[in-house]
């Protein structure tokens, strides 16, 4: 059985580590704790029995409570094999920068370095086309291929 626990955003790993340490001595059967990168503010706890939130082992700072109901294992599988960020992006795609100094700017993909997960972009609104290299997780796809 897999349950979702709500945590403070940014504290997912700390909450997971504390729960893992607490359950070792408490007799609660927690088999694994998953912190999916794409699911901010939640951790997934796999347990053989129903989680008793009243147990002192779950008195953890930054934890906001458990979500009612189980999560089917099929849904959890999608988090276990995260798809590479650059899989959907190709040369000529229009993307938006979501972090860094050019945040909010639109750009066209010039080159993709898959091994380093870097992309070389050309800002659309710049007067002179300057190639900018950014990490693959700093961009969001807007349009698959330019006209």
């Amino acid at each position, binding site marked *: 059985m897999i349950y979702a626990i709500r945590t403070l955003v940014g504290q997912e790993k700390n909450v997971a580590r504390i729960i893992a340490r607490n359950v070792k001595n408490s007799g609660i059967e927690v*088999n*694994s704790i998953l912190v999916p990168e794409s699911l901010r503010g939640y951790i997934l706890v796999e347990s053989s029995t129903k989680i008793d939130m009243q147990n002192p082992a779950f008195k953890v700072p930054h934890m906001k409570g458990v979500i009612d109901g189980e999560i089917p294992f099929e849904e959890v599988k999608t988090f276990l094999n995260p798809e590479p960020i650059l899989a959907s992006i190709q040369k000529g795609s229009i993307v938006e920068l979501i972090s860094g100094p050019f945040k909010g700017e639109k750009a066209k993909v010039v080159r993709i370095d898959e091994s380093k*997960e870097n992309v070389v972009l050309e800002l659309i609104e710049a007067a002179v086309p300057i190639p900018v290299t950014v990490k693959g997780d700093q961009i969001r796809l807007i349009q698959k291929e330019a006209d």
Partner: protein
Amino acid sequence: MVIKACTRCHRLMEEERCAICNIPSSKNWSGFLIIVDPENSDIAKELNISLPGEYALRVR
């Protein structure tokens, strides 16, 4: 303290080399998984993990 991940078994560690696989570890990893009881865990079975510990989901 930089946490690194083994590129083969995805185990998280601070050392330069994985103690089990004896290959260099990578700083570039994402996703976080703690396996407490690998024998009863479906997630551990899905990922072929047989030792308890902390793991990354993706290592480059």
